[in-house]
């Protein structure tokens, strides 16, 4: 007997999602609100708040649509969606409009669409499909390579757009791979590469070369001195030195000065109190001014700080901090983390690998945005322009994240239709 579909939906997740979205919408209203001055209502379509409402309505329609497509639809068309989104990504390079320093937007009748957000979704689907294949063996080079390619292609395109922040999001798939049993060594190498890349930006490359040489020599000096070991250490050291040079070259071509700048500011907050550092200082002031209980709804946010454009997107968390204080920010973090953990829980109870991989993808992507965005506003992470899911203003990100959740909900609601994978597939765990 089939229970009604509604009973199978994870209401908890849906509820948390709706709560966040509505909270985000009302919060947008509070940004720049001034008593006696602001006359627009929540629904005034000329304001960003009003526009966000339209996006929310759109998301609800998308939700209803998502009910009609069953999971088989997504599973079979995953690669098609992925390819299509990559094509759109490439199209922005040709026809795109420059917004906020990178040309990643389409503009049509005043509506802006950013394919980058949707690629996060399709990439999760594609990786899920690749790893969900019966033939996928995670210790096989073929599988490892194809998955890495699926992740690297969007990164390349997005870097070409100049949007380093969004490109970084894709690095979070490392969590997905880790869960699925990728050999840790590969992941560690990946992390190592990123660390070297970042260090190369912060320090002149000669420091890195010299330290690599130093460490390598030291390792050869201590410990067994057999040929194999020495060879291994030397080749790794040389590889690192080679990488440093390659990264140096890449950084000069791809990274703009302000990216290097932002990393340097993170390390030394006093490096640029006038520029980027100023934004973060202002952000901390706004958040800090909330104290324990906050100033109250609509009573915060004086726009004298003068970074209004970012206040609705990258620095939206400031408004929460200012109006609801530490109690408010803590509750918000708890709710958001609960959402992410719920997704992880849902992912774990899936019976097919596709769904689990996909679920981890969704959780990781959401977590990454949350982590970087909030971390940036409180000054522990560099200023990278990525939105806070469901809270930041923007249709593309709202829709992309919402669809991600809707598809997951669908998979979850149909999970019992699948025979448990535990009896069929072989897993490293």
């Amino acid at each position, binding site marked *: 007997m089939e229970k009604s579909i509604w009973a199978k939906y994870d209401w908890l997740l849906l509820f948390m999602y709706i709560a966040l979205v509505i909270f985000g919408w009302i919060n947008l209203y509070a940004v720049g609100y001034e008593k006696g001055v602001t006359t627009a209502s929540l629904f005034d379509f000329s304001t960003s708040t009003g526009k966000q409402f339209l996006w929310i309505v759109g998301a609800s329609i998308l939700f209803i649509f998502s009910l009609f497509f069953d999971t088989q639809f997504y599973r079979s068309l995953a690669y098609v969606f992925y390819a299509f989104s990559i094509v759109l990504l490439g199209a922005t390079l040709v026809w795109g409009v420059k917004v906020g320093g990178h040309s990643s937007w389409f503009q049509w009748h005043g509506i802006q669409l950013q394919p980058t957000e949707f690629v996060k979704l399709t990439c999760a689907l594609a990786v899920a499909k690749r790893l969900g294949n019966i033939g996928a063996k995670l210790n096989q080079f073929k599988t490892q390579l194809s998955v890495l390619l699926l992740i690297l292609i969007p990164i390349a395109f997005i870097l070409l757009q100049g949007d380093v922040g969004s490109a970084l999001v894709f690095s979070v798939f490392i969590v997905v791979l880790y869960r699925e049993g990728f050999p840790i060594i590969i992941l560690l190498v990946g992390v190592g590469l990123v660390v070297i890349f970042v260090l190369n930006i912060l320090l002149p490359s000669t420091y890195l070369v010299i330290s690599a040489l130093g460490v390598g020599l030291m390792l050869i000096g201590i410990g067994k001195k057999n040929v194999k070991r020495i060879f291994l250490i030397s080749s790794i050291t040389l590889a690192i030195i080679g990488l440093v040079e390659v990264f140096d070259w890449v950084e000069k071509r791809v990274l703009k000065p302000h990216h290097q700048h932002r990393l340097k500011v993170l390390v030394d907050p006093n490096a640029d109190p006038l520029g980027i550092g100023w934004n973060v200082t202002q952000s901390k002031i706004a958040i800090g001014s909330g104290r324990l209980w906050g100033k109250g709804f609509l009573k915060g946010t004086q726009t004298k700080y003068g970074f209004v454009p970012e206040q609705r997107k990258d620095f939206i968390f400031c408004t929460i901090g200012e109006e609801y204080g530490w109690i408010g920010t803590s509750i918000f973090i708890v709710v958001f983390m609960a959402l992410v953990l719920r997704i992880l829980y849902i992912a774990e109870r899936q019976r097919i690998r596709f769904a689990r991989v996909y679920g*981890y993808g969704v959780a990781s992507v959401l977590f990454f945005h949350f982590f970087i965005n909030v971390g940036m506003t409180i000054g522990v992470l560099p200023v990278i322009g990525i939105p806070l899911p469901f809270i930041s203003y923007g249709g593309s990100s709202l829709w992309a994240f919402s669809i991600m959740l809707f598809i997951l909900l669908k998979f979850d609601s149909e999970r019992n239709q699948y025979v448990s994978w535990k009896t069929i597939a072989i897993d490293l765990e």
Partner: protein
Amino acid sequence: MYLSRSHIIQIIFILAGVTFIIKLFFIQVVNTEYSIAAEKNIVQRIEEYPYRGIIYDRNKQLLVYNNPVYDLMVIPKAVKNLNILSFCQAFNISTSEFTNALNRAKRYSHIRPSVFIKNIDHNDFAAIHTKLSDYLGFYIRARTVRKYPQAMLANTVGYVGEINTAQLLADTSQYYKQGDLIGISGLEAKYEALLRGKRGVKYKITDARGQEKGSFKEGTLDILSVPGQDLISTIDASLQLYGETLMRNKIGSIVAIEPSTGEVLAMVSSPAYDPNLLTSKNLSNNFAALERDSLAPLFHRPIMAMYPPGSIFKLVQALIALQEGVVQPNTVYSCNKKIVNCHPHPSPTNLHQAIQFSCNPYFYHVFKHIVNQHIVKDTYEDTRIGLNKWLNYVRQFGLGKQLGIDLPHEKSGYLPDVSFYDARYGEKRWKASTIRSLDIGQGEMLVTPLQMANLAAIMANRGHYYTPHLIKSIEGQTISTKKHVIQIEKNHFDFAVNAMRDVIDSSSAWRAKIKNVIVCGKTGTAENPHGEDHAVFMGFAPLEAPKIAIAVYVENAGWGARAAAAIAGLMLEKYLMGQVSRKSIEDYVLKGDFTY
């Protein structure tokens, strides 16, 4: 306890969330420095414009200094509960002016400050200052504007104005922003990097009413502005002022140099204008008026006007000829007016007399002998060799190239060379007689008044000069200059200088003669096909241990021995004696009006 990978991931995520909550606790609850905002205070970022360097004359008199000026700034978004009528009364503007200004500010930005009223005078400022707290959203920004204690040296010092788009694009250091002031001409432009100092930033805490409450974070984030560096120029202010007075109603230049150092004592460009015109509110109007003036006062004549040197060039010819050995002091030629026209004087003459009386035909021979030394049989080829030899000497005198004075847009003058004549007449189709007008400093060659004064300095030094410059020290550090030596023996220079002495002593240029001081010089009358000839004088004093070398160029003033010599003599007397006693000559000059 076995931890599966999924557990590890959950733990990492939770840890991240907890870390944030803890960090937020510190920011929001523990740390009070962020809570200044809790009292509805805001941190204002105020840019500090540094004090621009001052330029003094050689005796530490002010040539240009900074005058404080105040702008009324507005942040439209912060304007609340404004009583427009009382505001307009307090600031003395009409209500329509108020509305226009506010709308303009709103169009620029609601949240960024913009200028509401520009250039409020010091005196008005005092009255307004106390009322300011009544008007939310308005505040005063103080900056400085250049002021010139005396109306002189306009083109030399130059002026300061707002940076334009082209300059902003060319600024690779990215120091300048829109609305910044930058030196646009003269010394202000040349020494811009030293004069401007470095912008600073102050972070101040102000309350919602705009009252300052103190420095943010005890000023640890502040960047101190670095004041501009003061410059001491070589100019002698009283001499300069005197020169500008003498040159009133005349078009031309005076350049005076101290021969032993290359320091420029005076640089007069006429017609001149009051440099204070280019600092006030009416800068653009005044500038446009000056630009439209047909006499071109903005044209910096001492370094930009190029003229044929005329008779003063005969000294150079004589020196070259003596050095080459093609003419001796006792070489005699008669004044054959069929060769070239000349004014009445005793004939024939030796070299000394030829200089003294400025005999044109004599120098026809001199030049011919320099250029045709019969090194090869073919005259045409011989002339090429000769001209190159001649050019080699002439260039050593600093002609045909920039001297390198510390001002922008110095012209190099012009020296026609072999390829020039080849292009004009064809190769091997010109010889000494073709290019003869060079012999008396006419023809195609061009020099600037600065180069003429430098020539005078060379004569004063008997064979060398220092690069002429206008700034002698920066913040107490003296600037070094380069010495240039001309490859002509000193005794030839002694000879020439003696002749120059007689030009003043026993000849037509008596107007330059000063009591108790031996003055040496040479006059010139430059042909002008369009009107009256131009008057030229070049000289120095005293004969032994000269202190000042000078060149005077007055357009359309006729015969050089009159106007130019008179002016030069007065300038020399003023500088050496401190005052002028020959009042009749002074009157003569002051009354002279040679403008058209």
